[in-house]
């Protein structure tokens, strides 16, 4: 309390004394308050982005990276990346990985969220258990998945064996590697969807369900006619955040398959990492070009979301 009073006194004094100078000093104060966040944004967002853009527009070799003076080559790195035989498969895998992961994460997350709205004994404990994948460090969950899916000694194949099904080379066959990393990513992403959608459900008043029940709506109708439409804003933000998280997933894939075998689980994120860091000789230019394409993809969806949201608000 004392501090606040003191501040009020200090603030009041100059106001009385020099009202003419007030706008200017107010402006200075405003700038002073803005300065930290501006410095933060410039240092940690604008400059790295600029550097990444700059890297992608120059022909960097190891020598010019250290000594400086890399020649400006315009969009040449982007051309190299676009004509790389990895580009097509990487784009396809990025889209499949993202869409399929999101579809399953969202559907399962929604189903669980609805399930947990009915309180039953130990429901809180069970809900907490569902959060475990989210709490585990990704390196732990991805390594565990890669052990479980090991062709020869993995638990998944030994279960299949007892069920009389031939073993599947989850991580080492080009047909299955993408499926495997998607399964692991869905498992990791469910808790996020569950938590956000569950809190969204809490905001829907129970009276609406009562009214719907009185009007004779069954459970299925209540979901589709009440829950789903009222949850739309929360669903949209869940999907958008999920999309951005999923587009840039690197660790899970890198730990489980390194994007292989033969690029069969390479996405833009792993490709960019491999170009920049996965080789003895880093190719900074193409690596940052792929990274920038990824940023643009996320940005496009972000803008799309804002536009849709605005239209909803005006409607």
């Amino acid at each position: 309390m004392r501090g606040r009073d003191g501040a009020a006194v200090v603030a009041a004094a100059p106001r009385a004394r020099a009202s003419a100078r007030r706008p200017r000093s107010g402006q200075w104060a405003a700038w002073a308050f803005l300065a930290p966040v501006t410095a933060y944004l410039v240092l940690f967002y604008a400059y790295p982005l600029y550097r990444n853009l700059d890297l992608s527009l120059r022909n960097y070799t190891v020598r010019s990276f250290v000594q400086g003076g890399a020649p400006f080559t315009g969009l040449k790195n982007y051309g190299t990346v676009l004509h790389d035989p990895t580009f097509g498969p990487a784009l396809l895998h990025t889209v499949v990985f993202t869409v399929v992961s999101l579809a399953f994460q969202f559907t399962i997350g929604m189903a669980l969220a609805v399930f947990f709205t009915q309180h039953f004994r130990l429901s809180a404990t069970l809900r907490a258990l569902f959060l475990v994948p989210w709490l585990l460090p990704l390196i732990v969950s991805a390594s565990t998945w890669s052990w479980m899916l090991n062709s020869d000694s993995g638990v998944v194949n030994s279960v299949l064996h007892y069920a009389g099904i031939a073993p599947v080379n989850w991580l080492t066959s080009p047909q299955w590697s993408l499926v495997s990393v998607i399964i692991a990513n869905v498992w990791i992403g469910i808790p996020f969807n569950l938590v956000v959608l569950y809190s969204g459900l809490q905001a829907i008043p129970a009276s609406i369900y009562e009214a719907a029940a009185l009007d004779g709506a069954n459970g299925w109708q209540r979901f589709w006619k009440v829950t789903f439409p009222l949850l739309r804003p929360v669903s949209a933000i869940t999907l958008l955040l999920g999309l951005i998280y999923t587009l840039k997933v690197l660790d899970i894939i890198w730990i489980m398959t390194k994007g292989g075998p033969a690029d069969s689980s390479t996405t833009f994120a792993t490709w960019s990492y491999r170009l920049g860091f996965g080789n003895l000789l880093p190719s900074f230019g193409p690596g940052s070009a792929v990274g920038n394409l990824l940023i643009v993809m996320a940005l496009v969806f972000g803008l799309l979301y804002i536009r849709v949201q605005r239209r909803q608000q005006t409607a």
Partner: protein
Amino acid sequence: MRALPFRRRAIGAGLVAVALSAGLAGCASSQGGTGGGAAKGTYTIWDPYPQFDNSSAWVQLLNKCGTSAGVTVKRTGYDTSDLTNKALLASQQGNAPDVLIVDNPVVSTLAEGGVLTTTADTKIDTSSIEPNLLAAGQSGGKTYGIPIGANTLALYYNKAVLKAANVDIASVKDWNSLTAALAKVNEAGKKGITFSGIGTEEGSFQFLPWFWGSGAQLTKLDSPAAMSALSLWTDWVKKGYAPNSVINNTQTTSWQEFATGKFAFAENGTWQVANAKKAGFEYGIIPIPAMNGGTAPAPTGGEFVTVPVQKQTDRYATSEKLVTCLTSADNSYTTDTTLSYVAPTDAVQAKQVAATPDLKVWVDAVHAAKGRTSDNLGTKYPKISQPMWTAMQAALSGSKSPQAALTAAQSTAAAATK
């Protein structure tokens, strides 16, 4: 009531002051390191051995070498895969360490970047080092460092498994006899061989003994000899002599497979000797056979001690003292024993074999070994290695035939190294 917040605030202010002065002191001491000038001061050393903490023999050796050179050593251990880019960035910012210990195939990349001094600049004596080991640190007729020790690959075998399958290890002399042994092991219901065919440099490292053992050259990935090497691996996987998991195995996971005791053979390195003793079964080691007999040249592993370029060239004299101390015969013996490496000089190798006769096979393997960046490949090596491991993965996973995979690899490598 009023006194308490004031005192709290005073304590707070005091804490801030302490933190600030500690921070400033931190800045001051680190500045002393780079601006030291003459022999007095702090010298920085980076190494890829994060497993060693300050109480380890390695760090104590670094400190001892610092003391005898009259300086304080500030050491940082990095993950080896991190170190290349860290060193490049540091050089870009003009604060490279005084001494950098780095994986041997990276030396040519850093040299290309102008990051490293030559041993002629720093007057480091490399005359006692075996030429095939030193070659990994040479490019364009210049030497950019001195190996701290070497490791390489050989075949570990499980005596009990071979006995059960009725295989005499003396019969394994070339690829045919090895494959025949694997077939016998397979028939006896055991597993044949495990190796690491992962899609990274590690995979290339493991494939090279077979590639070179066929007589193939890295400058021509699609030669008939190269074909036979890749077909050997692919057939092993197809016939079940090697498990499918080799496609994703690192050398560590491959070793874990061998340690289960179910495998007859494992291709792995010197660094597993200590683990082999703990495995709980009797094992032996043979050099990797070449296609038609004899020992195949395996790639050399192990790090080089290098001196990055500094603005103040008068620092080199002390850096030279540090490097010479680290690689001197006595210290080399201690370090290489700690790291489970083979020493890079004849004299120290003899001492190692006298102390541990088991090391003989490794010393022989190191004599036959070859640097990946040797043959004047230098920075072309990484551009060849990646297409090679990509081809290996494609063939092992069955997405391409060995022939098609290697043809594609050669055209990628040729375009990249043009």
